[in-house]
């Protein structure tokens, strides 16, 4: 199942590129909007990259589940003998590979653009590595609840953004602390803990929510 998803995803290359391009563009807007001064960029850099990553993931969520839902195969998937939660986990991992992973990989490059020092860049990479999957999973919960609704996009953002706040706070702060030579392990531990929580709980929630949404059609 996982491989099938990955195969399909890689065929739609535009969908992979879109979140990454969005990510890069948004980050590039900030020097233009605020100031290209390296000190300024260094101080806002972690926050900017984190918020941009968050928005990119939000953008990419729209395509999750959608094609399956529209052509009815979602119900077939949920009826299959395999536990729905495992299938969902596979689906999300595929989604993350396509949308989250590219962002994580390209983030050090953006860190360079914003004049972040090397060790700070490294922490940025790790924080995103821990945090982005959480964003994917919790975002998937939002998608599962709003799929098939008319204004799904706006409602999805409203539902999901408050839930993103803890990861944003800890993730961004880990990098900022690293930049200021303050301890950052606590923040990273929090990110890891949230990730574990999301990984264990979200598949169940997502499959329940999808069942509810399917019954609505």
């Amino acid at each position, binding site marked *: 199942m996982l491989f099938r998803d990955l195969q399909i995803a890689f065929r739609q290359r535009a969908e992979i590129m879109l979140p990454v391009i969005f990510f890069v563009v948004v980050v590039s807007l900030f020097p233009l909007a605020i100031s290209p001064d390296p000190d300024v960029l260094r101080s806002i850099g972690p926050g900017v990259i984190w918020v941009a990553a968050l928005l990119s993931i939000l953008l990419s969520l729209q395509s999750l589940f959608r094609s399956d839902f529209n052509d009815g195969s979602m119900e077939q998937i949920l009826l299959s003998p395999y536990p729905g939660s495992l299938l969902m986990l596979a689906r999300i991992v595929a989604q993350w590979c396509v949308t989250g992973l590219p962002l994580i990989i390209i983030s050090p490059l953006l860190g360079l653009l914003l004049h972040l020092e090397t060790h700070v860049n490294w922490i940025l990479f790790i924080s995103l590595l821990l945090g982005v999957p959480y964003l994917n999973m919790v975002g998937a*919960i939002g998608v599962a*609840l*709003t799929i098939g*609704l*008319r*204004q799904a996009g706006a*409602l999805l953002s*409203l*539902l999901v*953004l*408050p*839930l993103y*706040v*803890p990861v944003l*706070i*800890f993730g961004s*702060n880990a990098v900022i602390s690293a930049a200021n030579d303050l301890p950052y392990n606590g923040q990273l531990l*929090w990110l890891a803990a*949230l990730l574990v929580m999301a990984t264990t*709980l979200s598949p169940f*929630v997502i499959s*329940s*929510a999808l069942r*509810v*949404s399917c*019954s*609505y059609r």
Partner: protein
Amino acid sequence: MSEQNKTWLWFHRMGSPAYFYNFAGLLLPWCVIATVILMLIGLIGGLVYAPADYQQGEGFRIIYVHVPSAWMSMFVYMVMAINGAIFLIWHIKLSDIIARSSAVIGASFTFLALATGSIWGKPMWGTWWVWDARLTSELLLLFLYLGYIGLRAAIDDRRVAGKAASILALVGVINIPIIHYSVVWWNTLHQPASISKFDNPSIHIDMLIPLLCMALAFKLFYLCILLINSRSELLEQEKRTQWVKELVTSS
């Protein structure tokens, strides 16, 4: 009949829509009266009798509406989440009705906590808004409420809307402690030297009693709204049944 059996029977009867409708209707006037009385006591106690705070002067009196609003905003969300769980697990329709009836008033309390907090902030700390832990948490809670209301509104089918909203409420309730902790933590980073801005100085008993009265009054007000709303929702849900038919045609 033993005490246990009586309680169980009462619970069982509550599940019956007609019984609940009548029970709520009987309870409502008493609730209203109690709310008004407690609100008057609280208001008079808070505005007149409570001594002025030596640090904040008369301005601190806003606490008598700010704190109860904040407490209620969380309390109502808990009620919504718990009823959501009951609805998902045991499919008791009354639970969904209670959750549905509480959403707007809960969001209102959250809004009031934000508004009164903001107004309180201006004379105290000079700005209309301050990103302190409590206000920021309330703001995020408001988003959670609005998302809940939006989700319910977007789904036309009552039962499906109820299930989806219940899932959302449960996800929210798990996240609220996490969100709150992260916001508090974030806040302490940026204001290392201060105590939480909304911390009350050592609270005098004269100050405490009106606060508790107002808190209780707000709770009773919520109960009034809940009773009225759930009766409306119940009628909507059961509109084709015999008891509703008799009820509306006889009046």
